[in-house]
């Protein structure tokens, strides 16, 4: 197609601001996908992506749009991963576009993550088109958000389409603006071929595929191509596009986006960011920006049942086919046996991989506490790179250690600045800068050690800000730090899988917290078990797991022999799944306890949340009522007459059918609570609801409000009925 009629763009949005929904509507409007075939949110094809509402792997969809002037345009929508761990992948996907649609939730405003990606897009000279989404929600404030976009990012947003991706309202305007404002590609169709790989995928039938954006020249089957960074050469067997199904085409020409299948064995041979060129007429220079991505977070992954080691290896190899950023090597642990030391781009990446291993490969896993990569300067002058606490040399041989630091930027409503700064300070953060970007939005910059944020920083941040703060980080440098290895002993035996490297000042509280946690998760055994934390042989904390006193079935007669045998079988099975550390049997999840040390404050539901649950339950059981002559059951979201019982959608809350904006993944239908963000900022106290302009009635049942100083719960908790 003529380049002037091609538009390559991506969508930038914060998690849950509606990127995928908008993409779906675009595909519908361009007849790419018939409405009836629409499986909600087509772009996210992995289960986990769907459930978490995030995109893990980028993909691209080709659409044809007939503009008002009657001309047909080819749209290539390139999907970008939406998480901090995948910044490099995002930057490559952006590189493949000329424009970016910036989606901002009209009820939420701009988040740190969005901001980071917008800057990335601007750095890559992309035309950014702001779009204000979710204007159908009663709590939407498009005006405010428009000003926010103008003030914070500095983009004119007066003409920004105000859409509802959910209902399809005004989505047409977005398409029209893409034609008008996104520049057409301007490569040289006859020059030497240059194609940027912005993603890789492994397909069981086609082998390793590269998603490319052709800048100059063309790629067609039969061509011999070279990957310019790795030097590998391949024969192109097929080129095609996603519509979003596979569709082969004759060639991909300058300006187009699609996939290339060649005799590529693994995704490692073609790396994201690399440039493909024609071997016969090679380009002089690759496209700029190629980088090798290094894992930042490591952890040990072991099969819960040692005999599944082979299965685990096979599963990791399969995942690796699709994910070049995953690294793993064999490792053995005294407590856990044979397993793998795996490297990840970040914590989320780690969670996704472990979850996929468990879900897609049906494996039970034990993961050890994550570690970052430390630099250890030895007395001998040598530098060691340590990603496993177990391999840390004896302290007497170490001159000093260095740890990776990150630059963290946090955006939050001003009410939470205090608690958030306290959190950063507690995590050894160094304050850098604070900016009031608007009267109710603050950007805080901190330098933090990566090792502090890989544990529970994100969760704590969410809980301290009631879910409103957003967070982004980038790796800064290595700094000298006073680090020690914290070991844990069970009945006197050291458990290598629990060892972790921490800052000296954090060792004592951490040791105590982990011991307390272990005391709870290690089941009582026949003998008393001392649980100790130690630094280099010095015990710094101790707890005791009391001995079990009775472990016997009280009753067993003729009729229930088989049943009692099954119970024993179950008990035996439970024991088998436990790991033996010296004399102590430890359940698999105990090894995660080092990781999951966090304020229990976040576990305590906010009293209002409980109230919501109560009201929702009440509503769902409410009798039918007469509405416009029709007898019907009240549903969440119904307006009701003042004073009546169904008035639960009121004040800061509303009940809706559909997905909860902060809810855990997977919930797509059923009643949910929606928060009116305006009114839920800052601790709510008795009587607060009085100032709230009722949108759907009055808030009833608000009997007990939390007092100041009490930590609220994350509004992520969903209500399932």
């Amino acid at each position, binding site marked *: 197609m003529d380049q002037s009629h091609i538009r390559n763009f991506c969508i930038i949005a914060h998690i849950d601001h509606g990127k995928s929904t908008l993409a779906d509507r675009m595909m519908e409007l361009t007849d790419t996908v018939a409405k009836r075939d629409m499986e909600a949110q087509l772009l996210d094809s992995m289960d986990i992506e769907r459930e978490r509402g995030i995109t893990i792997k980028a993909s691209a969809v080709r659409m044809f749009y007939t503009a008002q002037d009657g001309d047909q345009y080819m749209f290539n929508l390139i999907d970008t991963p939406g998480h901090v761990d995948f910044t490099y992948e995002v930057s490559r996907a952006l590189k493949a576009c000329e424009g970016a649609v910036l989606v901002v939730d009209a009820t939420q405003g701009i988040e740190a993550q969005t901001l980071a990606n917008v800057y990335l897009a601007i750095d890559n000279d992309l035309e950014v088109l702001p779009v204000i989404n979710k204007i159908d929600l009663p709590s939407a404030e498009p005006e405010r958000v428009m000003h926010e976009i103008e003030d914070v990012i500095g983009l004119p947003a007066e003409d920004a389409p105000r859409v509802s991706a959910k209902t399809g309202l005004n989505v047409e305007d977005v398409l029209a603006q893409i034609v008008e404002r996104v520049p057409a590609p301007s490569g040289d169709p006859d020059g030497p071929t240059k194609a940027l790989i912005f993603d890789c995928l492994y397909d069981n039938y086609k082998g390793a595929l590269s998603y490319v954006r052709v800048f100059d020249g063309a790629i067609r089957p039969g061509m011999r191509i070279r990957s310019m960074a790795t030097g590998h050469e391949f024969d192109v067997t097929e080129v095609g596009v996603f519509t979003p199904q596979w569709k082969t085409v004759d060639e991909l020409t300058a300006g187009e986006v699609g996939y290339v299948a060649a005799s590529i064995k693994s995704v490692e041979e073609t790396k994201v960011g690399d440039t493909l060129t024609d071997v016969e007429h090679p380009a002089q220079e690759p496209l700029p920006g190629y980088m090798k991505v290094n894992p930042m977070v490591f952890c040990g992954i072991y099969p819960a049942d040692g005999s599944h080691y082979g299965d685990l290896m096979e599963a990791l190899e399969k995942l690796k086919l699709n994910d070049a950023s995953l690294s793993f090597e064999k490792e053995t642990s005294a407590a856990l046996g044979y397993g793998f030391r795996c490297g990840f781009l970040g914590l989320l990446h780690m969670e996704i991989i472990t979850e996929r291993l468990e879900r897609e490969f049906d494996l039970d896993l034990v993961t050890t506490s994550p570690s970052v990569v430390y630099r250890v300067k030895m007395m001998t002058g040598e530098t060691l790179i340590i990603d496993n606490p177990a391999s840390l040399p004896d302290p007497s041989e170490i001159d000093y250690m260095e740890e990776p630091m990150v630059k963290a930027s946090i955006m939050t409503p001003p009410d939470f600045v205090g608690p958030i700064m306290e959190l950063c300070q507690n995590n050894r953060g160094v304050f850098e800068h604070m900016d009031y970007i608007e009267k109710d939005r603050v950007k805080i910059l901190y330098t933090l050690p990566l090792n502090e944020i890989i544990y529970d920083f994100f969760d704590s941040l969410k809980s301290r800000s009631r879910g409103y703060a957003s967070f982004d980080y980038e790796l800064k440098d290595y700094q000298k730090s006073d680090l020690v290895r914290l070991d844990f002993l069970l009945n006197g035996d050291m458990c290598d899988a629990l060892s972790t490297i921490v800052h000296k000042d954090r060792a004592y509280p951490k040791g105590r917290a982990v011991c307390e946690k272990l005391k709870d998760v290690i089941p*009582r055994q*026949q003998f008393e078990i001392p649980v100790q934390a130690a630094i280099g042989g010095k015990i710094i904390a101790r707890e005791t797991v*009391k001995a*079990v*006193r*009775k*472990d*016997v*079935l*009280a*009753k*067993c*007669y*003729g*009729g229930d*022999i*088989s049943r*009692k*045998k099954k119970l*024993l*079988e179950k*008990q*035996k099975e439970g*024991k088998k799944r436990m790991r033996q550390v010296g004399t102590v049997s430890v359940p698999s999840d105990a090894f995660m306890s080092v990781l999951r040390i966090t304020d229990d404050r976040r576990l305590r539901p906010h009293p209002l949340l409980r109230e919501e649950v109560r009201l929702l339950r009440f509503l769902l059981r409410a009798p039918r009522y007469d509405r416009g002559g029709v007898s019907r059951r009240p549903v969440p979201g119904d307006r009701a007459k003042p004073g009546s019982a169904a008035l639960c959608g009121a004040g800061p809350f509303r009940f809706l059918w559909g997905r909860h904006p902060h809810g855990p993944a997977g919930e797509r239908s059923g009643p949910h609570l929606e928060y009116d963000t305006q009114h839920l900022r800052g601790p709510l106290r008795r009587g607060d609801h009085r100032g709230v302009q009722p949108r759907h009635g009055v808030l009833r049942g608000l009997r007990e409000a939390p007092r100041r100083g009490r930590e609220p719960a994350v509004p992520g908790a969903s209500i399932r009925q």
Partner: protein
Amino acid sequence: MKLRAAGVNRLSLGLQSANDDLLKAVGRIHTYDQFLTAYRAARDAGFQNINVDLMHGLPGQTQADYLDTLQKVCDLGPEHISAYALILEDGTPLYKQVKAGETVLPDEDAVADMEDAGMAFLKQRGYERYEVSNFAKPGFACKHNLIYWDDAPYLGFGVAAHSSAPGEGEWLRWSNTESILEYLRKLKRGRLPTAETLHIDPREEMFEVVMLGLRKVKGIPRQAFLDRFGLSLEKAFPDAWLNVQANGWWSDDPARYALTEQGMDHLNTALCYFR
């Protein structure tokens, strides 16, 4: 009276607790007074061998509660007392209440304390423990239940009755249908109303003998095991034998495979060694 006259010589009454509030909490439909009436009626009818079922670890029960019940029951002087720790069975209303946090059970240690105190009390009152949860005055151990714990053959007749007997090269356990209509229909057609038959191979049978036999304070007579299976327990389960030994749970009596009191407290753990 009729039962006694028909030849029934032992009666078992399920009291569980002498505290009416506790009875209510676990959904029992009787009171302590009603039990007393029944107990006296049984004695009047001439029953010389009566068992009373008791429980500890009930929701809200304290050690004082439990000892009070034991005191009252011992004062009545039944020949046999079964004292069970509450088992929270999956699917029961109580199970649901506990899972939902509506009902709180005494913790592990409190239950163990009750059990220990109860056993000491019963011993002092002349009830001898002969099985995990069963106590009797000398000579009044339940002959019926001992058959189960010896894994000896028994035949059950009637709807839903269980039987257990040796077959050819295997042990058989079968049960009758639970439907009275099917029971009638089958018998009228001259067929056995068997619902399910389990074929237990000698290895399983050995395990069952261990599982049931070790419940008894006196355990399994060495000779009996040898006669039944042609090899000793040490040979049949060498690893388990050593594991139990390492815990110091075998009693000293060389003529029997029996557990010490501590071993009986950990019977499940011990049995897991045999699987």
